């Protein structure tokens, strides 16, 4: 039996390791196309600010990690997939046959159709190679324009600002992190950034990037322009599905998978950013390009690849956590709410504190927070366990900070001390 995993990001690595555990005798091959050992894009910002060395981004810390486990890690680019013969064609002309295949090819930055995007000082921030390039330019005092203030943009924003660059952020939508935060929270993050010396233009597009001497000139659609030594583009990502063209395997935005993370070809599975799987909250298929979902997908795909029964994907909860210059924000599930549901909200603009809970009946279905660092995961727990809150819903409507108590009261056997005293 030969299980092949294409893509050495978190989903691929976790799947390869799980396959090894679940099928000790099978052959497991992990194919990645970047020169470095498998690494985490999540860690790149910390590499950018030199908090960690490049090795600190590596998903696994020992050089022989994969070899020791009998996982054949190969650096190769897959150029073609032939489902009929269950073979992969590699860029060096070689072939790789599989019995089951996991596509964990991830995603890549979208390149907006703007004149000047191909100038040398314009870059995305996606790979370690990008990061090295940015680190070389984004010195203290350097003028940097960041295009896009989505989740990824904001992660980079933090790193760019901390590295001392003079930063201007341009976001097309009318608030920051528009796909993760509501108006209130997105605009509070903007205010926070502004008060920390970052220029933020929301509702603004970049019309063109021009050369200006040794530097760049970024022309905005509001009539103004910003000079820059570096432009970083973070205008979104899209799944790497080119490999599937002409294979007959169904794709939409990503690779369509069923509740077993299986594609329309029974021998081919998909996980992570490339997979268009079930969203826990909506029940619909969508791409969730987030680390926890990649990890879940990787685990679950492996179980299904070895034929374990009951390894059903119930959907992943969409969630994100951001640290924007020290302001920590998170959102979960249906943070935007559900029609007919109730919402509880606490807002303190002066102190940048915000908590918003969204309910359907007496079940928590979504949440947004700013400034919350303690027990924040319980929001996910309450959403994913679909805990019926009963009387605690009323208490949370009154005081949404008591989510941990609500969770404990509904899931743990809490007795009364007086019964012990007697």
């Amino acid at each position, binding site marked *: 039996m030969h299980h092949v995993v294409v893509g050495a990001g978190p989903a691929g690595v976790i799947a390869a390791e799980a396959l090894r555990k679940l099928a000790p005798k099978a052959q497991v091959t992990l194919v990645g196309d970047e020169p470095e050992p498998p690494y985490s894009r999540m860690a790149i910002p910390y590499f950018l600010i030199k908090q960690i060395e490049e090795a600190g981004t590596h998903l696994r810390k020992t050089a022989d990690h994969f070899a020791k486990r009998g996982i054949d890690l190969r650096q190769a680019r897959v150029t073609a997939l032939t489902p009929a013969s269950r073979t992969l064609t590699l860029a060096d002309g070689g072939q790789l046959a599989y019995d089951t295949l996991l596509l964990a090819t991830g995603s890549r930055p979208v390149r907006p159709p703007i004149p000047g995007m191909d100038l040398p000082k314009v870059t995305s921030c996606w790979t370690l190679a990008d990061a090295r390039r940015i680190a070389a330019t984004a010195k203290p005092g350097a003028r940097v324009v960041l295009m896009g203030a989505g989740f990824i943009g904001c992660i980079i924003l933090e790193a760019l600002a901390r590295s001392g660059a003079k930063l201007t952020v341009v976001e097309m939508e009318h608030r920051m992190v528009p796909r993760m935060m509501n108006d209130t929270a997105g605009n509070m993050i903007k205010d926070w950034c502004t008060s920390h010396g970052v220029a933020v233009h929301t509702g603004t597009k970049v019309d063109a990037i021009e050369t200006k001497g040794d530097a760049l000139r970024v022309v905005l659609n509001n009539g103004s322009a910003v000079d820059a030594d570096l432009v970083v583009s973070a205008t979104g990502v899209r799944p790497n599905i080119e490999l599937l063209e002409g294979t007959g395997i169904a794709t939409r935005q990503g690779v369509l998978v069923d509740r077993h993370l299986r594609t329309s070809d029974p021998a081919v599975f998909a996980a992570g950013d490339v997979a268009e799987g079930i969203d826990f909250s909506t029940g619909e298929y969508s791409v969730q390009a987030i680390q*926890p979902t990649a990890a879940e997908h990787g685990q679950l795909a492996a179980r299904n690849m070895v034929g374990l029964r009951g390894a059903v994907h119930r959907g992943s909860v969409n969630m994100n*956590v951001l*640290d924007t210059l*020290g302001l*920590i924000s998170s959102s979960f599930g249906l943070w935007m709410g559900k029609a007919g549901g109730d919402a509880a909200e606490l807002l303190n603009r002066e102190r940048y504190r915000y908590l918003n809970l969204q309910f359907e009946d007496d079940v928590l279905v979504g949440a947004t927070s700013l400034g919350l660092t303690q*027990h924040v*995961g319980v929001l996910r*727990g309450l959403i994913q*366990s679909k805990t019926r809150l009963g009387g605690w819903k009323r208490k949370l409507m009154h005081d949404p900070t008591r989510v941990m108590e609500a969770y404990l009261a509904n899931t743990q056997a809490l007795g009364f001390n007086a019964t012990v005293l007697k």
Partner: protein
Amino acid sequence: MLKALQLEPEKCTGCLQCEMACSFENEGVFNPSKSRIKVFTFHDEGRFAPYTCSQCAEAWCLHACPVEAIVINPATGAKDVHADVCVGCKVCTIACPFGTVNYNADSGKVIKCDLCGGSPACATACPTGAITYVDAEHTGYERMRAHAAQSLPHS
């Protein structure tokens, strides 16, 4: 046999000795805000509930960590955070459905219960026996884990 923390809320008086013991053991400071175990107060009901990581089998935090900073300690079965590896991305804090991995802004890292390497300070400090460190199978702990598993089937 692995041991586990047994939490019996009905014996808790809310004194926070456990939180101080935890912070002192791990940070060298009496500082409940840095404790890995927390006592939750239900004022209207007159109840107190100590709660911390149950070292769950699913290990949501461990799997969510992008840099392998959370690993299983084979001696205790605990999921330990290696602070030198943790980059502070906080993904584990949102991934843990029990809310027991927390970000410590002062260190820029996350913190969670590691059973103090096999001799939990909270259990030693608890004056009422609400927190004990016992053979895992002898506790309601397995039930607790079963409940966790049941309420949160692996997606």
